């Protein structure tokens, strides 16, 4: 079973569908035309580039190239996470990068070695594609988790200081905020897990099925990747919070105010 290729002309017909949001935006003054076209344009350019890039990546399939590319992807994810958190990048860049890298590498190599049992664990098809899915899907949870943790402590300054004044240790004082932010971070992933297959066919499955693989294989991959996403999300949120504590809090256990933009 071969996937039917879409010609460039046909793809233009797909773009024609965008007329719907454009017309709606015109009629109701939604101010969406410019952001819509910019985003669609960016998406197209980025995907064309990555399409070409992946073609060569799969062709060369060298461990150091694949690993370097995965690190670039982690860096991009780190920058998006920090931008979404409204915290100053300078202070938290390194700890967030280390956290994301550990979480992604640990899960992906576990999968490649023990689950898929690849002979060549750096295979671009698995390393890059699965790595991208882990990063892309745990990113939202990460942003929610990290920013909730610091924003809530800032918002609750009085309560947080009161807790310290009661004789709480630093770990005792941050524990409620840690719990809350990790729960929040996992919420979107857990919600999409619970409705998986019924409400939405996930991208991974759509891709694999269109690619000619049987649905039986596709669901096994989907189950594996969802578990991977949960694990990498919770791992990276925990690590990020623990590794940023040193820079974000003073030695007196109070939140540094200069960490926010």
């Amino acid at each position: 079973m071969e996937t039917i290729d879409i010609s460039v002309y046909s793809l233009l017909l797909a773009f024609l569908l965008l007329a719907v949001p454009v017309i709606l935006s015109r009629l109701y003054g939604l101010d969406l035309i410019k952001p819509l076209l910019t985003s669609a344009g960016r998406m197209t350019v980025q995907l064309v580039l990555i399409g070409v890039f992946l073609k060569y990546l799969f062709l060369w399939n060298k461990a150091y190239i694949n690993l370097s590319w995965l690190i670039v992807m982690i860096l991009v994810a780190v920058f998006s996470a920090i931008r979404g958190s409204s915290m100053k990048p300078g202070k938290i860049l390194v700890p967030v990068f280390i956290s994301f890298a550990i979480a992604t590498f640990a899960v992906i190599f576990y999968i490649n070695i023990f689950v898929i049992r690849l002979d060549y664990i750096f295979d671009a098809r698995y390393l890059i594609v699965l790595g991208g899915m882990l990063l892309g899907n745990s990113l939202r949870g990460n942003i929610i988790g990290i920013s909730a943790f610091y924003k809530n402590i800032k918002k609750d300054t009085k309560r947080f200081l009161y807790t310290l004044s009661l004789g709480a240790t630093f770990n005792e004082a941050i524990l409620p905020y840690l719990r809350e932010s990790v729960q929040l971070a996992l919420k979107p992933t857990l919600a999409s897990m619970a409705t998986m297959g019924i409400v939405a066919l996930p991208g991974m499955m759509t891709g694999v099925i269109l690619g000619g693989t049987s649905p039986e294989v596709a669901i096994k991959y989907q189950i594996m990747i969802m578990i991977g996403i949960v694990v990498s999300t919770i791992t990276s949120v925990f690590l990020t919070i623990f590794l940023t504590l040193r820079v974000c809090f003073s030695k007196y256990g109070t939140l540094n105010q200069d960490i926010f933009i």
Partner: protein
Amino acid sequence: MIRYEKIKLDFDGKVIFNDFSCEIAKGEKVVLLGRSGLGKSSLFGLVLGFVEPQSGKVLFDEALVDEHTIWHVREKVAFVDQDVSLGDYKVSDWFSFVAGIKSNHVLNFSEERIGELMDFFELSRDLLAKDISDLSGGERQRVAIIVSVLLERNVFLLDEVTSALDKNLKKKTADFFIERKDWTVVSISHDAVWLDNPNVKVFDLEKKTWKQ
């Protein structure tokens, strides 16, 4: 008990203290007086390690307050903040929260003890089942005071704890703290029940000196 030595403190370029020194002896009852922005709360924050001076030092019980000793100091001081609250919890949760902190495990947070104090401060015992956010300002102040008393500490930093109480309760509350000889009490207040009490020393932050 608490000694400020040559403190220099500023926030965002605004000078709060410059070469400020002051000592509060063990067992003294002190009121800090002055309009807002003069650094009354900062004086509490300095003891509790919530603000760090640019220079100068704070001594608590003859020991320098620094990043190592601060955790010990916080176990010795009972701090009642202005409208402190735990958020969306019940009043009884407030007590369990404080009792749940490891360094407070040895304390007596029994229903009986809490009940006695609630009676003294004229709070109905039904209050325990209420949401903290549903309490009036005066009720919340009294719950916070009761919590501070349950901590069984000997140094009290009280930020406007009587402001929302009625006349009789103001007196009763101030006297409750002033009458205990072994307690060192520092209170930020404009209430006459503190200021006019002969056993209370008043520190005027306007002039940075003791009022005669």
